[in-house]
Structures are given as structure tokens and as C-alpha cells.
């Protein structure tokens, strides 16, 4: 075992991930998902808002984390649109606005074409400054985001009427891949606005750091692709019911089959590796 070429492990992992994708592509089947409390809390927080409420959504990721976070962004946007809520999109990562535009094009412009830019949703783009931006929007939102992405002043946008600071939004959602992201939103926005409800969709790497803020400082949390799949299932059940869900809204659940087989392989390898280690140790101990 100790002499095993590690490339065999890579090959096994490749097959464990690739074959379920092909199986899913041919059959179209996904595993059922039952929501964990953090995912359910995300769903409930959005459901609790009255129609027409404005929601601040921060796209704090780039293409490197798209595999985990884009399905969350799609589900959040679909849920907000279905509930007739009004997302105000910002980004702390330079490529965030592009990701937001992709989500807006895929969800709002395709499935909710009656929604008007500037009135029902808006993309205010990226601002450099990391936690500095969060610190400022806590007291003066327009100082950091004076215009939307196309250059229209926010003073002329109906969706921004009465919004002067981050605390004016009843709900804030961050979809984050690292720094700045979920942790900074808790530290600089949630802590200074006790009544504000903050939800976070985070990558697997970030999840263990952000988990300690749930459920106090973070009302809900989507942890990695598993959280995305659970929330996606909740939103699909609420919107589609018994109807077939459009494939673009099943992206996270499609990625759960590779997860299952990838994890099974990893667990098997860890168990096998440990068994071999203890077996070898015992052999050495009994050898003269």
C-alpha cells in the first residue's frame, strides 16, 4: 500500500466524480435533499419578508468559486424574484458584478422579464476597499455606491428611495468565496446593526470559519454545495411544486452525486490507509 503510485488515487477520484456526472447527464436524476437548519433558516428569512422589500445582495466571488457559489446565487435570485422582493446588488470582488450580470440574465431577464432595472432590481457594481467599504456603507451607503453599473446616479433609481445606510435593508445576503466575504459582513455590518438579518452562502473552505456566527450573528447559512443543493430543493418545492424544475435550477443537486461518490472513495481510502498502517505496525511489533 505504501508503494502505491498516487496517480491511481487521482484516477479513481476522477472516475468517482466524472461517472456520476455522465450518469446524471443521461438519466437526469438527482438525489433527494432534506434541508438542515442553516439552509432552512435562509429560506424562512426570505419567506418572512413582505412583498416589495429591498434586499442587499453582495456577490463576493469570482469564476474560481463559481462551481460552488453560482447555484446559490441563482437560487437566491429566483427566490427573491418569486417573492417579488427587490435585490440591490453590490460586489466587494472585482469580478462580482460580472457574475451578478450572468445571474440577472439567467434568472430575471429570462424568467421574470416584467421586472424593471432600477425599479425592481439594480446592479450597483464593484467598489474597492474591502472592509473599508462595509464600514462606510454602515453609515452612508451612497458615498460608496453613488451610481449604478451603467452610470445612473442612485438618487434617480426608485429602488434606492429612502436607503441611506446598510441597516435600512431588512435583509442582507452575501455570497462569498473568501476575503472579503461572510466573515467581514458579520464583523462590520451585522455587529453594528443589531436588527439586521444577515444570510451567507459560503464555500466549503470558508464554512468552518463562518459556522461559529450561526445562528446569532448569521441568521442563515448555505455551507458549500450541500447547502446550495438543500436551498435549491426548498426553492424548487415552493415554486415548482409537482412540476418539472428547469435544468438551470437543479445545478447544485446535479453536483451532489459526484460529491457522494467522491466522499465515499475518500472515506474508503482513509479507512484503508489507517488499517494498513496499524497492520504494518503490528507486524513490526511481533517481528523478532
Amino acid at each position, binding site marked *: 500500500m505504501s508503494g502505491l503510485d498516487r496517480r491511481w488515487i487521482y484516477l479513481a477520484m476522477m472516475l468517482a466524480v466524472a461517472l456520476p*456526472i455522465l450518469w446524471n447527464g443521461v438519466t437526469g436524476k438527482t438525489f433527494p435533499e432534506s434541508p438542515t437548519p442553516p439552509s432552512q433558516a435562509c429560506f424562512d428569512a426570505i419567506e418572512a419578508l413582505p412583498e416589495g422589500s429591498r434586499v442587499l445582495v453582495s456577490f463576493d466571488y469570482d469564476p474560481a468559486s463559481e462551481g460552488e457559489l453560482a447555484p446559490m446565487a441563482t437560487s437566491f435570485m429566483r427566490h427573491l424574484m418569486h417573492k417579488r422582493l427587490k435585490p440591490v446588488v453590490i460586489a466587494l470582488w*472585482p469580478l462580482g458584478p460580472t457574475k451578478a450580470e450572468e445571474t440577472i440574465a439567467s434568472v430575471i431577464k429570462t424568467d421574470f422579464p416584467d421586472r424593471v432595472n432600477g425599479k425592481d432590481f439594480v446592479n450597483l457594481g464593484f467598489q474597492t476597499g474591502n472592509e473599508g467599504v462595509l464600514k462606510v456603507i454602515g453609515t452612508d451607503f451612497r458615498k460608496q455606491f453613488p451610481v449604478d453599473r451603467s452610470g445612473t*446616479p442612485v438618487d434617480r433609481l426608485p429602488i434606492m428611495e429612502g436607503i441611506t445606510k446598510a441597516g435600512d435593508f431588512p435583509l442582507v445576503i452575501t455570497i462569498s468565496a473568501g476575503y472579503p466575504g461572510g466573515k467581514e459582513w458579520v*464583523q462590520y455590518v451585522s*455587529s453594528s446593526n443589531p436588527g439586521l438579518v444577515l444570510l451567507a452562502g459560503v464555500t466549503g473552505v470558508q464554512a468552518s470559519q463562518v459556522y461559529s456566527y450561526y445562528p446569532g450573528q448569521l441568521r442563515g447559512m448555505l455551507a458549500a454545495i450541500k447547502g446550495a443543493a438543500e436551498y435549491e430543493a426548498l426553492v424548487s418545492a415552493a415554486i415548482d411544486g409537482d412540476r418539472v424544475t428547469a435544468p438551470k435550477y437543479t445545478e447544485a443537486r446535479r453536483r451532489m452525486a459526484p460529491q457522494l461518490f467522491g466522499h465515499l472513495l475518500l472515506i474508503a481510502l482513509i479507512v484503508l490507509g489507517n488499517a494498513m498502517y496499524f497492520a504494518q505496525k503490528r507486524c513490526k511489533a511481533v517481528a523478532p
Partner: protein
Amino acid sequence: MSDAITDQAAPAQGRWWIGLFLVIAVLVAIRAGMGEGMGRVYVQTETTRYASTTNEQGRVAWSAVADGTAGAVTIERDLFRTAGQFRAAESAAPGQQAIRVSWDRTIGLWLAAFFTLAVFSFLAGDNPAYKLTESIVIGVSAGYWMVVAFWETLVPKLLANLAPDMVKAWCMPNLEGGAFNPIALIPLGLGIMLLSQLTPLGRHVGRWPLAFVIGTFAGLKMVSHVESDIIEQVRATMLPLVAFEDDGSFAAWASIRNVLIIVGVLCTLAYFVFSVEHKGAVGRAARVGVWFLMITFGSAFGFTVMGRIALLAARFEFLFIDWLWLIDPKGERAMAVVAAATQLVP
């Protein structure tokens, strides 16, 4: 000795890599010749005419206008279309040109596939294809961040405050304010001092802006950390050991969870108390704390594995769906789905 082995192994390894890439190339060529082919990107050109108007505040606004409007400019945008939409358009009007293959985007798709495979090839060993891809990623990232820093920081935050009229005429026609802001000279000066680090004589000058950055950052972090990572976290551990439901009945699971949280926090803290020797009760608590720490590290590792597998799955989906056209989970190449999207086809 080892150099000699490396020298002997190098030609054989080179031949192995060439052989592997040739096998992949042959398989891809076979796939490209089968059925509907693979790896093509379709676009449809959308033409819009825009005219600008300037209001009393001097603000310029561009809006879409009808064809033939004097002074209007034409903007063409290529919008992505699916293979299914292309096939639907072809079946409706053979030889149509509205939806067509975009060769530049198709080349981009094939380059993305090549780079993905090249990065994967590192798992088998270092090789020129991986090195090339790595260099391109680093170069593109550096260039991209330079452009972002220039257009998102230097121009709107610095130049727009120092020379507003020039910036307004040059690249930000809707810039508001418009007055010289002398405070912007401070970051300009600090920036120049920071650049002096590049010269041997100016290294000590570069320490001043660094001190400013570190001091500001420390001040900013201190307050937020105390608030969110100490006070709020301590508050989150002040839990009742015996919990009850809303109707007054005993909540067993909630009680067990609360006990676990409190015991976990106390034992983990005990492990980090180094001023007391880890013997007796403190030692036992510290050993329990180590178990809690190990479980935490294990869960963090599990989450990391989940994240990495998700990213790997996303790359495989790109290869299987967008490049090789092996599967079609979104139904983008199926004619049946296209029927619902015919409004996109002129």
C-alpha cells in the same frame, strides 16, 4: 548519480507525455467526427443605435433610439445562442446567417478545454503544458489586477479628486463634484513614498506609509473583532444547561447540544492555558479539548474536500457539456427545448 538518472529518464518521460497528448488528440478527433460534432459556440448579433443627451447639470445619458436618428452610434453585441437554437433556425431557414458559429469564441472554448486538461496533467507529473498554463494564468491575473487597480482605484479615487475636469473630459463624463480636493494629495504622497521601497536609498521612506496602513487596519479590525469575535461569541456560549421547549416540556437534544457547546469551549480554552501545567483536572480538560479541536479540524477538512470536489465537478461539466457535447442536462442542444425559445430567433 541522481542527475545521471534524471538525464536518462528525461527523453523517456518526454516521449510518454507526447504519447499521452497524441492519444487525447486522436480521441478528441474521433469525437469531433461523430454525430453532431463538438465544441462550437454560436452567437447572434444584436444591433442597437444609441444617441446621447446632456441635461442642464452637464450629465450625459445614452439611450436607445430608432434607426435613422441623426448623430446616433451603432453598437453591435454578440449574444450567446445554443446549438439547439442554431439547429431550429437552420431547419426554419436553411443557410440563415442570423445565428452563426463564432470562431473567436469557439477558439476560446477550445483553449479553455486545453488549459483545463493541462492543469489536470500536473497530477501525472510536471510537464511543459502545465508550465505554459501556469505562466498564462499568472500573467493574465497580474494584468487584470493592474487594470482593475487603475480603473477602480487610481482614476476614480485619486485622479478624479486631483484633476476632476481632466478626468471628466477623458473618461468619466458623469463625474460629479468637480472640485480639486487637496486631501487626495495625502494618499498620492503616501503612494509615492511606498514606491520608493523599490529604490535602495528610499527604503526607510517606504516604512511610513506602511506604518499608516498597518495602524489604520489594526484600528479598524480591533473594534470589529472585539465586538463580533469576542463579545458576541461569549454571549453565544451563555446557554442554559437544561433547555425547555416553548410549551415548557424538557428539550433533551437542545440540552445535550448546549452542554456539548459549553464543555467544548471550556475544554478547548483549557488546552490553550499554558501558564498552568497540564496535570490533574486541567490536564484532563485539555485532553478533551484536543478531541474537540481534532473534530473541528476534521469537519474543516471535510468541508474543504466538499468544496474541491464541487470545483472538480464543475470543470468536468464544462468538458462534458460545453466542449465534448457528451451530455446535455440543460437540453441546450435538443430541438424540443428550442421550440420554446424560438422568439430569440428572428
